């Protein structure tokens, strides 16, 4: 069985500071990893994915994530946070790109002005 852990319910950061949202995963095999963002009353929006290759993946809105196989982690990062980044962030894993996703419980990111 595959699982995702997002250890922080909430992350608080000041605008302009770097942010990190943590994610660790457990899967038998090579993972496909995703980050999605959810704004209030809206659906999940795809941010970025890791399939293979370079461990540092760049995505939408200046976000990036680093795949670390030895630590089974896929932390989301951004060098300079914006107030508009405040939202609920979900990490997800699957064993192939064409299969069902297993999500973490989400991390609320709050960026203060």
């Amino acid at each position, binding site marked *: 069985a595959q699982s995702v852990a997002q250890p922080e319910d909430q992350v608080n950061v000041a605008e302009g500071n770097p942010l990190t949202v943590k994610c660790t995963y457990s899967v038998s095999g090579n993972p496909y990893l995703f980050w999605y963002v959810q704004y209030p009353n809206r659906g999940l929006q795809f941010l970025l994915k890791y399939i293979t290759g370079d461990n540092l993946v760049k995505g939408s809105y200046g976000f990036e994530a680093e795949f670390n196989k030895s630590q089974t982690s896929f932390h989301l990062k951004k060098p300079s946070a914006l107030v508009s980044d405040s939202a609920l962030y979900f990490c997800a894993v699957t064993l192939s790109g064409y299969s069902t*996703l297993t999500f973490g419980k989400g991390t609320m990111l709050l960026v203060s002005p």
Partner: protein
Amino acid sequence: GAGVSQTPSNKVTEKGKYVELRCDPISGHTALYWYRQSLGQGPEFLIYFQGTGAADDSGLPNDRFFAVRPEGSVSTLKIQRTERGDSAVYLCASSSVGGEQFFGPGTRLTVL
């Protein structure tokens, strides 16, 4: 182009009633997924269609839940004899072959 659409956006029903939730995927996407998101939780997989057939329905919680995709496009999630515990946001997603999943805005189901 148009994204994934879901109707209705909100559905309030009484315990024991039958409900249908509709999903219109992105045109050309052969894969369609249903997830359920309870308050404070991440989405949980319900069922996955490849074309017209259910490739994986292992996430359906019990036999009150059923989904169809008769023409390989629009899908309907059907819930019989609704219970208060069925209250959640039901999310639909679609994808092309090997592609990431694109999600609709969801249907918020409230069972009174």
